[in-house]
């Protein structure tokens, strides 16, 4: 069954502001037929060219894409351009009483179209639109590199969505942006991007490595870091690890579930090692042992 709120259904069945504005000040187009959804947003400004007085849309897509577009046009009317730019995809989802997580990309598409429209109006990135795979055009000179080839999504766009929505798993990123939802070839890269964004999040509130540690305290801390910081990350990917032994600076771990025998487990143990060095002691060496 469809897991849509009454508001989503209502906006889908009775969409507001469908159509176009022939003398629109700003037009934003995102998505394509190949992608399975697309949105064309028209904005009309007041005489001071500051406040949005009218908004219309055309959408190709599923019920939640149409409802998100309808919601967006209602939300931006009466706002200044700067106020409109402050609308996040979360705001659109909230306006609709929430969206199923796998449909969050519909709200992201709405927010993206708004950004494109305003950016183009302000004179950035006014290139002719093509119906090719071309997500992330809010970044006018195609800043960043394409990560997801199936849906044409850049790393810059992905990092922004990961950051704004505090996403922690590749599956969530797919639900919010569609990236990784085609062939799946870019999922490892998406995981790296999550790690990068999460890494920079952590530097905001740095946890300090203690100056001096008793052996007992050190072992406790290693266990704590593994439990609190490492294992939840692995769980998110269906993996796990087990602490086997601690011998001086040597920390022996065994990978479990999806991590066991995973080709990138070598990479994973380096990540674990770096984390332990950052938070416990500089000389820690992580060794992977067979179970």
């Amino acid at each position, binding site marked *: 069954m469809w897991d849509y709120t009454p508001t989503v259904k209502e906006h889908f069945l009775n969409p507001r502001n469908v159509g176009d504005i022939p003398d629109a000040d700003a037009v934003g187009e995102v998505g394509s037929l190949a992608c399975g959804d697309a949105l064309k947003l028209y904005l009309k400004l007041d005489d001071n060219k500051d406040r949005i007085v009218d908004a219309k849309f055309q959408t190709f897509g599923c*019920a939640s894409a149409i409802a998100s577009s309808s919601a967006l046009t209602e939300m931006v009317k009466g706002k200044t351009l700067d106020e409109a730019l402050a609308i996040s995809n979360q705001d659109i989802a909230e306006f609709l009483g929430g969206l199923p997580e796998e449909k969050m990309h519909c709200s992201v598409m709405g927010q993206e179209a708004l950004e494109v429209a305003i950016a183009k109006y302000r004179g950035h990135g006014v290139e002719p639109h093509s119906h090719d795979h071309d997500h992330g055009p809010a970044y006018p000179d195609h800043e960043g590199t394409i990560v997801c080839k199936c849906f044409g999504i850049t790393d810059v766009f992905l990092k922004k969505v990961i950051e704004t929505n505090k996403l922690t798993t590749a599956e969530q990123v797919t639900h919010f942006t569609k990236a990784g939802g085609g062939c799946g070839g870019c999922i490892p890269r998406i995981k790296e991007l999550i790690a990068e964004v999460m890494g920079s999040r952590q530097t905001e509130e740095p946890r300090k490595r203690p100056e001096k540690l008793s052996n007992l305290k050190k072992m406790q801390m290693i266990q704590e870091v593994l439990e609190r910081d490492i294992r939840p990350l692995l769980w998110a990917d269906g993996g796990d690890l087990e602490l086997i032994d601690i011998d001086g600076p040597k920390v022996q771990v065994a990978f479990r579930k999806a991590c066991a025998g995973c080709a990138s487990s070598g990479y994973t143990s380096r990540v674990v090692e770096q984390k332990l060095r950052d938070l416990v002691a500089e000389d820690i060496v992580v060794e992977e042992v067979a179970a």
Partner: protein
Amino acid sequence: MKEIYLDNNATTKVDEAVFEEMRPYFCELYGNPSSMHFFGGQVQQKVDEARRRVAALLCASPDEIIFTACGTESDNAAIRSALEVFPEKRHVITSRVEHPAVLTQCRNLTQRGYRVSEIGVDSEGRLDLAELNAAMDADTAIVSLMYANNETGVIFPIEEVAANVKAKGALFHTDAVQAVGKVQINLAASNIDMLSLSGHKLHAPKGIGVLYLRRGTPFRPFLVGGHQEKSRRAGTENAAAIIALGKACELAGQHMEIENTQVKAMRDRLQSELMARILHARINGGAAERLPNTLNIAFEFVEGEAILLLLNELGICASSGSACTSGSLEPSHVLRAMGVPFTCAHGSIRFSLSRFSSDSEIDTVIRELPPIIAHLRQMSPFGREFLKEQG
């Protein structure tokens, strides 16, 4: 709201005669068919009768019928058995358009070191026989190909294929879940080694399936334990459902002609009326031999989930191969394998009829669907461009 149920490839209504047949075997005649006493024995007799009825529909012998819990179990059991029977053979052949019950298992085998060939189809969904013949070699343990496709209804030339496979010395399994009851299958004159069917696709309840196993075909059971089903499928028999399936198979034999005349006529009328009323539509698999009950129709410039939800508002139940309903973000693997253009794939809808469908239900869809497509095209930027071009 009265439902208009046109999603019979997903599941079917249990025929009331089938339900009456199974009803006593819950609260009254609940004995275990394996028991020595009369109370279990009378259930055993009904299970035997059911086995004969299933066999009769397939022109098989009763001892070739193994009852399972579902079509998926039958598919899994067939493929696993072949690999255990031929441990030295490391190659499996299937098609790109199989049901996940077969395809997922085959793809998982690649992680265990098997070679898996997925045979392609043409733009109408027809199997590439040349590719299949080229793929078979002495290392091939099993070839598993569906009899008819669940999304498009396209029928594969299974008998011809089975003969070729036999000549190469591999086992041949067919997932006939959608075909049984709609296509005449004569296993007495066939090279099919194993065949899967599912009760709930032919008006029996959910939770009952069959694996047909040709007499003499080597087999290793999927479930081991008790001696049920001649030790080929352990576990206490789901007696009531088995009895229901027997009745459903008997009825399916009686109604097969209706499926291919009355039901087919309704499907054909739905197809031609929709094509006449809606521009820029196409039939997926329309030029291929198809099941009589299935219509997979694509509407350009609109998205399938939106169509389904608007139909749903009117009580009309159908399904879609569009990205938003397939659980992934791309259109169904079947439509992609056929190379259906993106402009169409996202707007594909499947109507699947049964002998319980009525002309007035078809009339309702013919009346209601064209304005839904027009409404969504009016809202779609691509649809608007198209409408403008049309003037």
